[in-house]
């Protein structure tokens, strides 16, 4: 089932064309990753999908009553705003105390409910942001560079947790990441974005597409090789460059 469809999306901000003719769709239960260099419009695309930005042209169609859980890149809590983890988890919907505690247990932070949000470490804050997004029982979980600021074991943990969440709740996951090798191994589909969709398909297909190589070089090949054998090489569904797939 299609949760969300983006058709011919154009976004112009301050006279600058950020995104043009972007088409994509998200299916239930899949993990879709968007990769792209800085300034390629990844965050803009996510903003358009959550509704924070209006399309200049094109259309975004959501499944009726689509619930979105959004985990931002970072969260700045103003020093004037006192906010405990528990109070934050109750925004914008109030939940039963038992559910909040369960969410905290699941996030591996059972004792931090009364802690101030501003006193958490980067990893703890990331888990709390994820826990809050999951409390809404989303159909679609959106992660914007969610592991930025985490060390390698930390982000590996985080992605394992995401995989678990997907298994248990069946929600779709849309993420933006710069950690190409980790992302590639956990995604069902990858979209390479650079103002427009350069190429799209299974991780290994995208990784070897010339457009992708042109942007990221072949520096990630070593890491990718680890995962390459997991994927079916006969099934090339890179939309724009079928048949141009080269083995490294």
């Amino acid at each position, binding site marked *: 089932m299609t949760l969300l469809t983006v058709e011919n999306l154009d976004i112009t901000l301050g006279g600058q064309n950020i995104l043009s003719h972007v088409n994509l769709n998200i299916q239930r239960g899949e993990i879709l990753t968007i990769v792209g260099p800085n300034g390629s419009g990844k965050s803009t695309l996510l903003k358009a999908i959550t509704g924070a930005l209006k399309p200049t042209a094109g259309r975004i169609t959501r499944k009726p009553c689509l619930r979105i859980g959004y985990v931002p890149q970072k969260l700045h809590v*103003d020093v004037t705003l006192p906010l405990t983890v528990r109070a934050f988890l109750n925004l914008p919907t109030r939940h039963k105390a038992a559910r909040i505690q369960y969410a905290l247990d699941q996030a591996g932070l059972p004792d931090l409910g009364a802690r101030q949000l501003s006193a958490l470490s980067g990893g703890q804050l990331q888990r709390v942001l994820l826990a809050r997004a999951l409390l809404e029982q989303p159909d679609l979980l959106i992660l914007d560079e969610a592991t930025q600021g985490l060390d390698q074991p930390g982000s590996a943990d985080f992605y394992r947790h995401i995989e678990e969440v997907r298994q248990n709740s069946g929600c779709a996951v849309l993420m933006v990441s710069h950690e190409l090798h980790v992302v590639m191994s956990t995604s069902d589909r990858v979209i390479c974005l650079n103002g427009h969709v350069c190429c799209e398909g299974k991780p290994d297909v995208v990784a070897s597409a010339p457009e992708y190589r042109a942007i990221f070089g072949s520096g990630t090949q070593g890491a990718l090789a680890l995962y390459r054998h997991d994927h079916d090489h006969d099934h090339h569904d890179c939309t724009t460059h079928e048949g141009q797939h080269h083995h490294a």
Partner: protein
Amino acid sequence: MTTTMITTIAPRTKGSTTMLDDFMTRALLAGMGVAFAAAPLGCFVVWRRMAYFGDATAHAAILGVALSLALNMSIFAGAMIIALVMAALVANLSDRGFAMDTMLGVLSHSALAFGLVAVSFLPNVRIDIMAYLFGDILAVNKVDLAVIWCGAALVVGMLIWRRNALLLSTLSPDLAYASGIDPRREQLILTLSLAIVVAVAIKVVGVLLITAMLIIPAATARTISRTPLAMMVIATCVAVAAVLSGLQVSLWQDTPTGPTIVCCAAVFFVFSMSLGALLKERTN
């Protein structure tokens, strides 16, 4: 002021029919009405760093006062209309990439200056401009009281109704959008509330000190609060206490009431800062 007091106290000593005939009771109720609305709204003003915005809106209200006097309409209505126009102007200009503090400084003080000049042009009106700049809480009548409490009830009602959406929009507009909340709509609710508070607070503390009633109770509550709700409740208590003690002190020392209320709030702020520092030292 002493003479007013004697004359107004007179009916009370004869045995008044209702308690609202007592100017002190009316002043107390008016002050509490403003405290109930200004304190929780003030928390949002502090969280969103809108203090200057509050100043600009409040200062513009003096222009509204001039308008009301010229057109012979209610001061509340005039002040509120101009406050809303000012708020809309600020919101509009801030979208065009002006430096916010500079622009607010320009708007805020020009509005005040134009208002003062406009009042001086009014023919056949002998008004005490001081009453609008610093408030005249002892002169509040029953109609004023009704308007103040209706306005306060409206503001508190809106804040309670929208509290979670307002809070999430304040914390992060992106999170709000993802949850299906439009932060611009929430901003509009705050702007409207601010205009109402400015309008009802003119009689009580005057345009120059309205921002104080918004900011000081909230700042006082910050050091001893752990959640947003607690901060709003404590700020309201601080504001009510400031009104009560300010009225008492002004009666006792024969000082201007509006500024005395703000002085009391400031004293509470210093107390809470020291208390906060003490608590911090103990936990370390």
